[in-house]
């Protein structure tokens, strides 16, 4: 018989609004966590998933309070327990692994000491035993040479290593239940795959139950046995992981899975309209009604109950799940993107090097940059008018740095940025004339930061119009409304402030502002990574549509290979500020590829339990590019010998026009990778 270790019964958590209304963040949640199982809680921001996870350890965030229901652990309700008693459970019986381990670890204490603290609190071992246990724990989370790691400070470890330490600390009390709140969200793709694999191993090895909270269905798919899908504070679907990912019977999950770009499919996925309602705005009826493709008249006024279907072992909150049952396995359609690129060259980067090193006094006086091993080196890319070129790589690969230099925000050390074959653009803003500034516009990652919170949408979009075209009065307003309509926002958005918009709407305003300048090139810096999954596809579709209408060229920076696959015509893969591979996106995603591309492709997490990430290289983080030889030598699993360490590899062309920079001949790479 399975043992239930955590029972959540009719749990409702909410807050009181200024007007005194009770607004629910969690609505009547009932679920059980069984011993030894891993449950994934998935939902977009604001769906209440973190609130639920915190309630499972008896914690309710400041400002919120429990309205009803209980969280039962060892047959006592955590939510009305005294803090003295809770202390005995937290850390010892229920442990939590936070999202950002870098912030969760105390910066001025050594790793070993911090784990020791956890052990002192949660175990009865003496000093000798604790010392042994620390290296045992560090070993378990697969940190190299535990003895030296224990003596280091948190900042001396990489993000992945910090996350491992957080896991080790959580395991110190040998908990029965492990709560993980987005534990891999801030990590690089390759590191993420490694950490997930470790969590899987720990779940099997220790038999601990895990609750894995994430917005990322790809990560959830890799670890969970069971998935709970949350939408605006309710459980809308709950069932075995495989069924939910392959044959979702709730329209929200169905739409969500259809809108996630996949590596195997080139082209833009269908997008889901609208965005999740704010808490307290649903007036009866199904919370997903506005965005649902299957809704009927009755969904508007009646809200469906969570219904348990015995034959599928699944609970679903929908009147029309049968329609989806008939559909069976999910079938993703993508709209193939049109390749608009013309033969004409629009931007040419030749031999670009960029250095972040602090310059010596003499160099400062002569206003020059000297650095033998710059952060970004030898970037040669030729960008054609109308194409979308993507720069891909992990953090620290220099992709955003290159973007900054193109925008004129960062001085280059060497190299030329040439526009339309004739004009050289300076990498210093002050030396560019207004027209040069107009032709290149930026869209940023986080619309919360890129829109001035004290400006209305009108003021935000008016800025480039006033600056570049000197528009005024009625004409200005007409142009603003025109732009808003182009990004599918109504005229009434004009007087709103960014805080009154949802994430997707904010990003649309940012897109409108970029297009207001009528630019030739738009630099997109991780434009979708701050957005919710269901909104991401809509923004990508919009960008593609605008590009086809205006013939704009995009330089698209992203760490997400599936997104890049969906939108780009050509891809350049970067490692440590050096190009590894450049080619048409179809070919980059096919073998043969550069060993680094191979690692990246292998580590992508897909929302499919059948596709497991392939862990090829170690997830070490290199601080500085190597001085000599191939940039990837430190992590390459296909290293051929001294030549990789001494000589910069040559560019080799594949049959389809894909350029790879590697010492291994293309034919051999192909043979190795197809094995």
């Amino acid at each position, binding site marked *: 018989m399975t043992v239930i270790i955590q029972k959540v019964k009719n749990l409702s958590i909410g807050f009181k609004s200024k007007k005194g209304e009770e607004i629910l963040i969690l609505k009547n949640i009932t679920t059980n966590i069984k011993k030894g199982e891993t449950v994934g809680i998935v939902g977009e921001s604001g769906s209440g998933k973190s609130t639920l996870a915190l309630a499972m350890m008896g914690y309710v965030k400041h400002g919120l309070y429990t309205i009803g229901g209980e969280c039962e652990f060892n047959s006592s309700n955590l939510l009305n327990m005294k803090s003295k008693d809770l202390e005995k459970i937290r850390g010892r019986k229920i442990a939590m692994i936070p999202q950002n381990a870098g912030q969760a670890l105390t910066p001025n204490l050594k790793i070993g000491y911090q784990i020791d603290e956890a052990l002192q609190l949660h175990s009865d071992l003496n000093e000798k035993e604790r010392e042994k246990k620390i290296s045992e724990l560090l070993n378990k989370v697969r940190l190299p040479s535990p003895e030296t790691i224990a003596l280091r400070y948190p900042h001396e470890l990489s993000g992945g290593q910090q996350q491992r330490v957080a896991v080790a600390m959580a395991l110190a009390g040998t908990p029965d239940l492990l709560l993980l709140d987005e534990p891999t969200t801030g990590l690089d793709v390759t590191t993420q795959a490694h950490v997930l694999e470790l969590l899987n191993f720990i779940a099997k090895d220790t038999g601990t139950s895990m609750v894995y909270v994430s917005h990322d269905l790809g990560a959830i798919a890799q670890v969970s046995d069971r998935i709970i899908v949350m939408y605006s504070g309710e459980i809308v679907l709950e069932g075995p992981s495989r069924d939910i990912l392959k044959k979702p019977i709730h329209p929200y999950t169905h739409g969500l899975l259809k809108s996630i770009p996949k590596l195997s499919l080139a082209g833009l996925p269908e997008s889901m309209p609208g965005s999740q309602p*704010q808490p307290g705005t649903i007036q009866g009826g199904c919370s997903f009604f506005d965005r649902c493709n299957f809704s009927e008249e009755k969904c508007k006024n009646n809200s469906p109950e969570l219904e348990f279907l015995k034959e599928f072992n699944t609970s679903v909150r929908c009147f029309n799940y049968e329609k989806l049952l008939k559909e069976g396995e999910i079938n993703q359609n993508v709209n193939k993107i049109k390749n608009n690129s013309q033969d004409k060259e629009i931007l040419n980067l030749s031999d670009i090097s960029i250095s972040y090193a602090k310059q010596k006094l003499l160099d400062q006086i002569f206003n020059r940059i000297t650095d033998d091993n710059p952060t970004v080196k030898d970037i040669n890319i030729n960008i054609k008018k109308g194409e979308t070129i993507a720069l891909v790589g992990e953090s620290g690969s220099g992709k955003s740095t290159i973007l900054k230099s193109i925008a004129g925000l960062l001085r280059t050390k060497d190299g030329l940025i040439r526009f339309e074959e004739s004009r050289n653009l300076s990498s210093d803003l002050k030396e560019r004339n207004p027209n040069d500034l107009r032709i290149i516009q930026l869209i940023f990652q986080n619309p919360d930061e890129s829109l001035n919170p004290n400006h209305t949408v009108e003021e935000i979009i008016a800025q480039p119009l006033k600056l570049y075209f000197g528009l005024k009065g009625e004409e200005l307003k007409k142009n603003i409304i025109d732009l808003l309509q182009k990004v599918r926002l109504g005229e009434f958005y004009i007087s709103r402030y960014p805080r009154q918009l949802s994430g997707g709407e904010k990003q649309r305003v940012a897109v409108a502002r970029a297009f207001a300048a009528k630019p030739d090139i738009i630099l997109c810096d991780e434009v979708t990574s701050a957005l919710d999954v269901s909104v991401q596809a809509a923004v990508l579709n919009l960008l593609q549509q605008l590009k086809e209408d205006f013939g704009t060229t995009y330089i698209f920076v992203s760490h997400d290979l599936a997104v890049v696959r969906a939108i780009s015509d050509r891809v350049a893969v970067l490692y440590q500020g050096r190009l590894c591979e450049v080619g048409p996106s179809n070919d980059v995603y096919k073998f043969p590829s550069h060993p680094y591309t191979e690692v990246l492709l292998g580590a992508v997490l897909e929302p499919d339990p059948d596709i497991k990430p392939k862990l090829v290289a170690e997830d070490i983080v290199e601080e500085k590019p190597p001085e000599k030889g191939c940039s990837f030598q430190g992590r390459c699993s296909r290293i051929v010998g001294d030549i990789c360490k001494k000589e910069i590899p040559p560019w080799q062309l594949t049959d389809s026009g894909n350029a790879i920079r590697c010492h291994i001949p293309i034919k051999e790479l192909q043979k190795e990778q197809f094995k």
Partner: protein
Amino acid sequence: MKLDNIYKEEKKSNFAKVSDIIITMASRPSGFIGLSILVFHVILAFISPFIAPYDFKAINPSLMLQAPSAEYWFGTDDLGRDVFTRTILGGRTALTITFFGSLIALLWGGLLGIFCGLVGGKTDDIVMRIVDAFLSIPWILAMLLIVSLLGTSTEVLIPALGFFYGKGIVRVARAATHDVIAKDFIVSARARGHSNFSIIWNEIIPNVRDAILVEGAMRWSWMLLGFSSLSFLGFGVSPPTPDWGLMISNARGLMSFAYWSVIAPIVGLSSLIIGINLTADAFAKALGIDRSTKAPV
């Protein structure tokens, strides 16, 4: 779409914004008390010349040091002048001078701070070291020097006080600018090629305005205390103009047997300072700035 309903909040007029802030301030007990005291003092400053029962400079030796009575509510001082008349008139000069002084402090301190925060680099280094150097000079000594060289007229006192109390605002404004400057909307404005002036005016000021205003309000109460200290030392307003600092200074020797002549100006001064302080705190809270976690720089 249902979403539209909750986002009804449209762009508000400036008047509506200000009245919103005042309502929020007055909704807390401390804010209400502070605002009431401040409003009381401001109204009193306006109407006191009309309601004063006696002439503030009429000396009458036969009425020297009379205890409070129905005729002389707060008694009389050592020259036989009515203390009530002098007390209600005593706040006018201090309030006016420090109010305009704070405005000057806000203006130069705020603008210089924002400018330094935006340009950074060597300019910032040099300017801030100069500000630091000035911060290390005891202001009261420097004030005494200025006043003794240029006299104690209002035209000297307002800019001098404004200058000395603006130094601290430079640091606050610079720190607030640093918080904003890293945001992408500034980068975006730079990349578009806006001028420094346009970036300061459109992008930075709306985001640092609140912090600087709150700082200015706090400085006002400090300046009031400072100005009264100057008067106390005899370098503020000159007699026979009624002024709290001066009155306290004159009557302090008589405290043991004519307490009334010193109590009244003390209550006047401290209540005004408390009023401004409470109002500034409530103002900060209404704007969402928590002063308890951010010590003044």
